[in-house]
């Protein structure tokens, strides 16, 4: 239609050219318009699609992210029964911004001193006038203090909530659980060993379950604490361990501290005697020497006889006994009366090379293999390890190990001779039992049962017996090394026990550092008088909790050892007569 009609009169060529130009321009304009429209429509369509998409799949405005599960700021720590041992709470923190204070500073300082008397009004006033921007006044403040401070109405005072670590059982198991520093980082114990697990947002939602049983821990701490106070000891340590899995059910070190306020109290109380401290634990070592000797074929059995003079001269030294036999005695008697002389001969026959190999196999020459970072390095004679040192190690002197290590040794010996590293975590599907490794033969393990039961039935450990629970074990009284000399009066006494001896399930190791004699002990400071009763009382308390039923009629097979002892008794009696 718009096409130019043929004119009657031929237009001038310029005009024709003009028409062609116009048409061209119009076409361009159309194209541009169309393009603009398309862009616009595309934008609209884009927005519309986005709206539709959001309507179909998007979130609504009030959506709260990350609240679908409660994740504490630091993971909880539970005991094996699910009781919280460490948890995180929101605590109030009171702080002050002196530059923002608008009221009368002197009056404010006086009021603060009334509410929080840990500082004087002068100190508060000095803070307010210091010109510094910020001070903490109190962390983990009690609600009534917070309310009182809030009532002051001073904008310069800041009240904030801050996650804080709380240990509901206070000092219970303090050395195992440890504590956190002011920034919430683990500084000791489990808090330190599992810092990454407890702090990592991916794992901290799931509590860390320890092998500790708080009831067993409480029983051990209560009984050990009583004994420590009663005998005026400077320290104590105790371990209860599952023989079959290596789980530590209770572990304590005394004096203890309150992890809620680790800064208060004696810093020395933070020292974990059970894992970090190494002690010469004396005669509690003898069962190991005997087991090594039996496994190596040096000792044939409980009936083998040794010559036990009153004093044994050896390698330029003299070995003494507290209960000298002065005659031939059997291996069973050597254990029963804890004879150094008999054990020294056994160790001598075993020899240094074999002894060292055995100790290494048992893990007594390295740091104890457990999760805690506080682990002491055992002390050995080292380069001085000669034949006489072999003898002294045989009866427990000259080698120092941690009490946890001693418990581990007993667990190995009575778990059919199989070693499991001690663990502080509960053995469950998340933390399965590791494959153990054999140290002693099954037969040796079995024969040691009646020997150690004998010690408690008739020997030095009578006071450790808990009727019905078949406790077996060994006392240990070691002279303490003071200024390079063994003191004749200051001891470390220990007892390592196993129960029930007819089917060993639990090990208990108890140690007192420098106990003093009392009237009831008739002046003695030996283990049979002070730590053995602790074991008896503790076992009576914890065995029922652990599912060990008392039975007065069950015993290990005592016929293996009794024949070699009763003769001796008769002899003794006749000689006395």
């Amino acid at each position: 239609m718009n096409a130019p009609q043929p004119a009657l009169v031929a237009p001038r060529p310029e005009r024709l050219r003009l028409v062609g130009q116009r048409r061209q321009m119009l076409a361009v304009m159309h194209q541009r318009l169309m393009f603009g429209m398309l862009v616009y429509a595309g934008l609209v369509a884009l927005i519309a699609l986005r709206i539709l998409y959001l309507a179909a799949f998007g979130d609504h405005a009030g959506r709260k992210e990350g609240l679908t599960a409660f994740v504490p700021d630091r993971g909880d720590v539970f005991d094996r029964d699910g009781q919280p041992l460490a948890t995180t709470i929101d605590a109030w923190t009171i702080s002050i911004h002196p530059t923002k204070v608008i009221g009368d500073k002197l009056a404010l300082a006086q009021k603060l001193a009334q509410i929080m008397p840990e500082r004087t009004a002068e100190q508060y006033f000095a803070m307010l006038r210091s010109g510094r921007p910020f001070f903490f006044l109190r962390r983990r403040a009690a609600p009534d203090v917070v309310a009182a401070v809030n009532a002051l109405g001073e904008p310069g005072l800041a009240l904030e909530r801050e996650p804080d670590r709380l240990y509901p059982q206070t000092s219970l198991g303090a050395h195992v659980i440890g504590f956190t520093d002011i920034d919430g980082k683990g500084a000791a114990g489990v808090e330190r060993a599992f810092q990454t697990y407890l702090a990592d947002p991916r794992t901290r939602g799931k509590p860390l379950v320890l092998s500790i049983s708080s009831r067993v821990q409480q029983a051990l701490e209560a009984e050990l604490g009583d004994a420590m106070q009663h005998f005026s000891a400077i320290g104590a340590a105790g371990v209860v361990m599952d023989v079959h899995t290596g789980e530590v059910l209770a572990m304590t070190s005394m004096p203890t501290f309150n992890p809620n306020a680790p800064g208060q109290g004696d810093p020395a109380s933070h020292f974990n005697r059970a894992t970090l401290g190494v002690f010469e634990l004396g005669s509690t070592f003898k069962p190991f020497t005997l087991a090594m000797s039996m496994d190596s074929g040096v000792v044939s059995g409980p009936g083998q006889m040794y010559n036990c003079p009153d004093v044994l001269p050896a390698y330029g030294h003299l070995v003494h006994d507290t209960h000298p036999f002065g005659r031939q005695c059997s291996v069973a008697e050597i254990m029963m009366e804890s004879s150094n002389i008999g054990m020294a001969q056994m160790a001598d026959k075993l020899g240094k090379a074999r002894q060292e190999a055995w100790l290494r196999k048992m893990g007594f020459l390295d740091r104890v293999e457990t999760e805690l970072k506080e682990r002491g390095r055992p002390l050995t004679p080292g380069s001085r390890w000669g034949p006489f040192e072999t003898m002294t190690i045989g009866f427990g002197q000259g080698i120092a190990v941690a009490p946890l290590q001693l418990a581990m040794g007993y667990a190995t010996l009575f778990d059919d001779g199989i070693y499991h590293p001690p663990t502080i975590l509960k053995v469950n599907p998340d933390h399965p039992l590791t494959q153990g490794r054999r140290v002693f033969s099954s037969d040796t393990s079995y024969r040691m049962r009646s020997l150690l039961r004998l010690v408690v039935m008739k020997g030095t450990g009578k006071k450790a017996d808990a009727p019905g629970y078949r406790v077996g074990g060994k006392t240990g009284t070691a002279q303490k090394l003071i200024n390079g000399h063994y003191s004749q009066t200051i001891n470390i006494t220990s007892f390592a026990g196993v129960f029930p001896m007819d089917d060993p399930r639990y090990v208990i190791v108890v140690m007192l550092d420098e106990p003093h004699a009392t009237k009831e002990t008739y002046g003695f400071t030996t283990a049979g008088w002070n730590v053995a009763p602790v074991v008896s009382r503790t076992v009576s308390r914890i065995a029922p909790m652990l599912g060990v039923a008392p039975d007065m009629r069950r015993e290990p097979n005592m016929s293996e050892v009794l024949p070699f002892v009763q003769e001796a008794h008769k002899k003794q009696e006749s000689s006395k007569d």
Partner: protein
Amino acid sequence: MSARSFGSLFMVASCAGAALGCYLVSLRVASERASLEDVETKIVLAQRDMRVIQTEIGTRGRLSQLERWNAGAFSLSAPAANQFLEGSFQLAQLVQPQKPTDFSGQVVLASAPAPSKPTPLGEPAADTAEPNAAPVATIPGGLLHQASLKTETREVPARTVSNLPQATAMKSADKPVTAAKPAQHSSADKPGLAAAHPLPVKAPSAKPEPAKAAKKKMVDKPALGAAKPMTKHAELAKNDPLAPVPAKHLGKPKDAPPAR
């Protein structure tokens, strides 16, 4: 024609309707999800509150605190090995069955009459025929009188008097409630042996309480009782577990209040 020209309009309308329907569905889903999230938020908040409360309870009831109470305040100690039992059978063994002979003790009631004798006043109680009631409580004569008011049997008094000397009567009378004694008499009577005296009348009334099973035994005893030593028997009656019941029934309302 018109339908065809509106066709596109229908298309647009139906598309718009479908889109709107879809949108409504998604809106509905979103709102459901929102309310679900609200619930989840509430759960989380509740969990946090529970944590706070559990922490507080756990801290206040911490084991060292319980230990302090148990060892200090209550003096509790761990159970000894012999305190554990292996089952219900062993537990049952610890309980001694009660001896049936106690019933025979009731028979003793018959003897009770002796005390009654001393107090003729007691007779009234006798009517009630409460054998055991005779818990030897001390009762002044006045009380006895009251009892008598209620009951009618007079024969008893007569016989009691005859049986025992007055002096003795006084002593025993004080306590045991006249009722006791008469009752016993009655029971005694029944056996027939007592025959003492008032059998006929009492027999009927007495029947109720006196042990049925005991009857036979009673027979023997009554004879003795009648002879003399009622007092002894009376004491036994007190001890009897069964005695109190009858006493409450009859004795209390009338005599007992002051005595007990």
